[in-house]
């Protein structure tokens, strides 16, 4: 924690210390309501005016055996009075609801950090489940930390003693007792959560009362009990003026798709099959029927994309969403969209692979699959979002490109962006750039594969229009007429035309933004969700007067036309990504430079420190 000794903004019984930024990790059993607790803390923190970033980290199993390591669920939030770019490298505070949560997370807690442990769950049985021979709260092994032992279960029970609740119901309220404590410790408003409890449990007034009581009791307990000598205040961040909300990547993606549909006037079709971590996009979109959104939970991944291709043929803004394994299943159909040159957005919320891999963890290892994972020469544009809220803009851009160039487009996010959240300055509807479907030629001039000179896009004549009846399909097309053709010259021409069309998209890519100077010693190249960690690391080094710059790629196919010149301006190029060097391969191949890879495949995002120290090594010439 960066402590500043400024006077507290308002006085309470205990002294208040001012902090610039704090990282808290809530952890417990997946049945302990950790995600919910984290999200409540996030909302209150957003309303308190801090900049923030969150990282939920939950197991793939819905309910792993209680008290075991596989069942540990975590939620980390980093909030600050300054700009926040990542969910924080290491927590300052760890809330551990049981021994398993302690064991899984204690290695990450900063030295001198605060550990709040629910002592009631440190029973011999629970300790045994995670192979603690002795109780770590008592054997001195935690002497590096400020250990605060709270008998959460007993205290929650006392607070709720007057209510006709079962033991299990009481136990389920203890996360709100802990949340109440954290609200006092970090001086957060509780109104939002109190309101949330009222609406969430409105059908069961007893639970409204119980959860409210637990929250307030936890808050009062932290204030009065002799456990904390002081509490903390984090001032409002200096964000751009405007109206804000908190948003996760999956929410932003869904809203971006709805917005794209609204500004283009095209009906939105979303065909999807449930898969972690993409399902929330389906859930979100299925709520928005009033916008005419048609969502379709298909029988499998192939049917999901098939339905979208059908809807695209029918003149809709068609989207299919999935994660890596689903992309593998959709590959043949993506090729069909390439061949039939229909607009289609393929959302890949990447997760750890291969195969089932790490369903709930993040990775960027689908890039090469998206670029090349199909039979034949099958070019598809790829666009990647860089932050949770950026998913909104990236989704709109993917839609715009798909319609303008009549092509399938990959929209890449990942598990970290999908579930992570940050404050989002809500754009005004009038600021969202409109885009239109290119006008059709008259029937007499209509040829299904006659291309627009500037974009090389073919016309989009949906069924229903008299005079435009035509047939398309997966067999090679005769140029212009679109009839079936096996002619060798025509095939090569069409292969080259499809590639040329995708390359034309470079004309839509704005000049690259460089973080730092346009020439220097080291350039860090990133894409996707590594944006925050790379930017923070590079800014730190720039603060130390190091010659380091960074660029972040939104367009991974085609690559921006000014990328080559930028790369040439640096002595060394580092490509940082959460895979074994996929963009690195592309850059080495395209620009023939000895770019250096910084790679991490742990299912966890980069820490700022990891990037910083790697760049320092590169700067020192190692």
């Amino acid at each position, binding site marked *: 924690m960066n402590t500043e000794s400024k006077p507290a903004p308002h006085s309470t019984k205990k002294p208040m210390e001012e902090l610039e930024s704090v990282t808290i990790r809530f952890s417990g059993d997946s049945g302990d309501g950790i995600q919910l607790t984290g999200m409540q803390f996030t909302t209150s923190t957003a309303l308190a005016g801090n900049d923030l970033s969150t990282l939920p980290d939950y197991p793939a199993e819905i309910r792993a055996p209680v008290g075991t390591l596989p069942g540990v669920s975590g939620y980390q939030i980093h909030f600050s009075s300054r700009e926040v770019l990542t969910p924080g490298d290491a927590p300052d505070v760890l809330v551990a609801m049981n021994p398993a949560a302690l064991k899984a997370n204690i290695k990450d807690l900063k030295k001198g950090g605060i550990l709040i442990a629910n002592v009631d769950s440190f029973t011999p049985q629970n300790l045994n489940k995670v192979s603690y021979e002795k109780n770590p709260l008592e054997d001195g092994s935690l002497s590096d930390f400020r250990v605060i032992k709270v008998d959460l279960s007993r205290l929650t029970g006392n607070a709720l003693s007057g209510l006709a609740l079962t033991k299990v119901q009481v136990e389920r309220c203890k996360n709100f007792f802990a949340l109440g404590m954290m609200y006092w410790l970090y001086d957060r408003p509780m109104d939002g959560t109190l309101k949330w409890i009222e609406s969430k449990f409105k059908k069961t007034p007893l639970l409204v009362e119980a959860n409210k009581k637990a929250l307030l009791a936890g808050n009062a307990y932290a204030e009065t009990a002799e456990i904390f000598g002081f509490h903390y205040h984090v001032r409002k961040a200096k964000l751009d003026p405007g109206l804000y909300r908190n948003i996760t990547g999956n929410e932003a993606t869904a809203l971006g798709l709805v917005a794209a549909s609204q500004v283009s006037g095209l009906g939105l079709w979303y065909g999807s099959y449930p898969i972690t971590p993409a399902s929330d996009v389906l859930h979100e979109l299925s709520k928005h029927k009033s916008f005419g959104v048609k969502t379709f939970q298909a029988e499998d991944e192939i049917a999901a994309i098939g339905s979208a291709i059908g809807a695209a*043929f029918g003149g809709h803004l068609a989207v299919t969403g999935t994660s890596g394994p689903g992309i593998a299943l959709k590959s043949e159909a993506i090729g069909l969209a390439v061949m039939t040159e229909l607009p289609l957005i393929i959302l890949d919320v990447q997760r750890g692979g291969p195969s089932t891999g790490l369903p709930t963890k993040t990775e960027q290892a689908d890039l090469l699959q998206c670029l090349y994972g199909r039979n034949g020469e099958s070019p598809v544009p790829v666009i990647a979002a860089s932050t949770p809220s950026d998913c909104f803009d990236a989704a709109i851009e993917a839609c715009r490109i798909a319609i303008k160039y009549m092509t399938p487009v990959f929209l890449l996010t990942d598990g970290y962006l999908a579930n992570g959240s940050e404050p989002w300055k809500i754009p005004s509807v009038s600021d969202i750039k409109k885009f239109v479907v290119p006008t059709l030629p008259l029937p007499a001039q209509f040829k299904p594969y006659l291309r627009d000179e500037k974009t090389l896009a073919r016309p989009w004549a949906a069924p229903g229009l008299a005079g435009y009846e035509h047939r398309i399909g997966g067999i090679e097309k005769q140029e212009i007429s679109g009839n079936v053709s096996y002619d060798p010259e025509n095939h090569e021409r069409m292969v080259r035309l499809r590639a040329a069309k995708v390359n034309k998209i470079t004309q839509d890519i704005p000049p690259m933004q460089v973080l730092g100077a346009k020439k220097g010693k080291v350039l860090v190249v990133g894409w996707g969700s590594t944006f925050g960690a790379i930017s923070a690391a590079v800014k730190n080094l720039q603060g130390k007067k190091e010659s380091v710059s960074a660029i972040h790629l939104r367009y991974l196919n085609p690559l921006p036309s000014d990328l080559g010149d930028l790369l040439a301006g640096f002595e060394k190029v580092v490509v940082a990504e959460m895979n074994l060097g996929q963009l690195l391969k592309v850059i080495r191949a395209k620009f023939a430079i000895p770019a250096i890879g910084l790679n991490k495949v742990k299912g966890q995002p980069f820490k700022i420190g990891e990037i910083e120290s790697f760049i320092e090594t590169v700067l020192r010439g190692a």
Partner: protein
Amino acid sequence: MENEKEIENLPASGPVLSRKDFVSDQMVRWCPGCGDFAILATVQKLMPTLGIPREKIVFVSGIGCSSRFPYYMNTYGFHSIHGRAPTLATGLKCARPDLMVWVVTGDGDGLSIGGNHLIHALRRNADLKILLFNNRIYGLTKGQLSPTSEMGKKTKSTPYGSIDYPLNPIALALASEATFVARAVDTDLNALSQVLDKAAKHKGSALIEIFQNCIVFNDGAWSEVSDKSLQSETTVTLEHGKPLVFGKNKNKGIRLKGWNLEVIEFEPGHPPADILIHDETSSPLAYLLSHMERPHFPVPQGVFRSVSRPVLNELMDAQIAEAKKSSPADLEKLLKGSETWTVAA
């Protein structure tokens, strides 16, 4: 932009009058003598009688000989990938309820690689008219067994004979809760035309199994039931509310015996009182009929089952209409979500 106005004002093609309006300019590339020609001609003849503008009709297919069908129809068409036609068709029909969507598939495309999609398109009642050309063989890949090939069948991939028990497409469709299930033969174009006409007018997904002859790789697979000189003895026509009577002399019929069916003979014109009367709305009956096979029974042609159930696209649109009524679309409100805060300048 001026095109836009002109396009908007284009006249609909209006009632199309003749078969030739539905013939595309593409050369038909099936083997001479293929059963597909007769089916294509029947469909092209049927289209003008439906009173649906040509531009509102779409044929979607998968992969296989039969799936080349859309290229030969002068409507909108989509020749997709192996087994997936029902998925494209479902998306298209739901996105564009104003269109009439036909699916052309085969026993390999529809029952093997695309089996999953077929059953879901049927149970959802996606209002697709699905023509399943069944020739009991893989033709386009030159002669491997298909899911409807009979046990023991020797093919290129089963030189010692097939050991896979065949699927019954009618029974599969019934089990998938299809609202319209019928069968026709590529040599009886009158009956085929009638069945297609009923399917076209049925509201909901329709599956029509068409016995089709592959002259090159499985010639004569259906000869017993397609040969006009044998048909009266080897087939029985299903007509709603009518007794199941067959035979050259109309002297044979079908009767329920316990949980099974039996063939009975009687004096022409005097069927027994307990002769089976066809009821298109009965699922158990349809299932029994679906298992009438040679040599013990005549093979049923016509409509096995025809019932009414809400169609997918209408259910989808009804939810949208309801949502629009209760909370009109407001993008600004949507973007704001439930909790916001203001950062002052």
